[in-house]
């Protein structure tokens, strides 16, 4: 956000700044989703516990950028794309036409459908991100609900993949990152479900020997 503002101020945006804003807010949503997904495997590997608080913050940042990205679409694409404005630019008529054109667009264009789905899935996660909601739902249920973030990340990557014209190298990078991060979860789940012979602490072994 700060970066976009800075880039705009110093004329670092391209000749099509509106498209830059759309692209950058979208890419930042994906980046924050990746950071969010990184924290749990990072704890497993390094023992660093950044999950509490920080993960919520990163998730909310992803949602924040997702919201910006969606708003950008509504304003720069849907509102500015109406071309004519009977009844004025800021009016009920215009609002209705934006809603109608957005619904039509989300239904008709697969990559928009996918991107919109990714965003909608983040909404309940953002709402239930507070401690109060964790308590009310219970840890297990809450954790199950928040696994929706996996779907959101996958859909986000597909959205990116489907919109590019020819050069898929950047969506591929994100696809690889998300695959590794979700793969790590599968790996740990698989490891956990097996009898934990190797996981007896050395000290415990030592004590049984003596």
């Amino acid at each position, binding site marked *: 956000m700060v*970066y976009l503002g800075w880039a705009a101020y110093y004329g670092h945006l391209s*000749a099509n700044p509106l498209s830059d804003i759309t692209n950058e807010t979208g890419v930042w949503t994906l980046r924050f989703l990746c950071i969010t997904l990184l924290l749990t495997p990072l704890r497993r590997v390094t023992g*660093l*516990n950044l999950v509490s608080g920080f993960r919520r913050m990163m998730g909310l940042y992803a949602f924040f950028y997702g919201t910006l990205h969606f708003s950008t679409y509504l304003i720069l694409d849907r509102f*500015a794309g109406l*071309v004519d404005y009977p009844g004025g630019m800021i009016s009920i008529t215009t609002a209705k036409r934006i809603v109608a054109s957005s619904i039509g667009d989300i239904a008709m264009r697969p990559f928009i459908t996918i991107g919109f789905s990714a965003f909608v899935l983040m909404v309940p996660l953002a709402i239930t991100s507070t401690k109060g909601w964790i308590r009310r739902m219970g840890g297990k249920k809450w954790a199950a609900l928040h696994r929706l973030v996996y779907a959101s990340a996958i859909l986000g990557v597909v959205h990116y993949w489907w919109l590019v*014209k020819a050069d898929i190298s950047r969506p591929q990078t994100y696809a690889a990152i998300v695959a590794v991060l979700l793969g790590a979860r599968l790996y740990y789940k698989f490891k956990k479900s097996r009898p934990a012979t190797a996981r007896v602490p050395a000290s415990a072994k030592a004590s049984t020997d003596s």
Partner: protein
Amino acid sequence: MLIKKPADIRSSEITPKKLYQTRRQFIQAAGAVAGAAVGIEVLTRGAAVLHAVQPAAHGKKWPNVKPNPTFSNTNGEVKNSWEQITTYNNYYEFGVDKDQPAELSRNFKTDGWMVEVSGECAKKGKFSIDDILKGETIEERVYRHRCVEAWSMVIPWNGIPLANFIKRCEPTGKAKYIKMTTALDRKQMPGVQSDVLDWPYVEGLRMDEAMHPLTILVVGLYGEMLPNQDGAPIRLAVPWKYGFKHVKSIQKIEFVEKEPVNTWQRQAPREYGFYANVNPNVNHPRWSQATERRIGEFFMRKTLMFNGYADQVQGMYTNLDLKKYF
């Protein structure tokens, strides 16, 4: 008898008190370092996309460029600036990002450029830019330029009718199409290292389209020699067709009997066709072509049939199903 129970944890494994007491700070510091590393990585990556790119340096002026108002029907539409036209380019041979051609084509050498003419014509051979311009008046044509990606510009091109050059090549009766190929210079064009497109870039026109008075060979912009990022030294402008038909840095012209397969059609035949006429009623499979964003404007414009050149060109397509031949 007392049996001494061994301690669960050996003293060597007990975390020193000091470290234990500072564990929170330790975690925070480690977190900050990790966060900073991720942050720097993403920021610099972002910077690769968004950084100021310099417009083309002003070069040699073409002498005696003659405005042609009859073929410049954009009265009242503001021309895009030199900076916009030379920093926002789709020229994949110099990178897939819009700002890459401005930077990566800077040292592209076009001295001694030759255009090779072959195929169904009498005058085959190699033509220099001087040969092509011999006896011609360079005209200024202010054309709308509509990209298939739904953005557009208004550009004052300088060039000559392609028809004039075609006549000099004396095509035979078998010449039904003209096929044009962009240079493929692996040393000077960093973008061709990637197989994002099937190089070299090929485009084509039906003979009547190629002979149409609106179709021009472009050698300049704003009265100056064409900047590299815009397709120096010679490119095509066919204003009623999408931008990708405007083949850049033309090195080969062939007169052929069969419809050539143009690069984007080869890339994605469901999305890009041979004709690529600007048509607000035929959408791209992934986005609408009904509107466009003129570079520099906030509100979109309605896209005009044949990009506003319907009066001059629709006669060529009366028997063509434009939905099928998009």
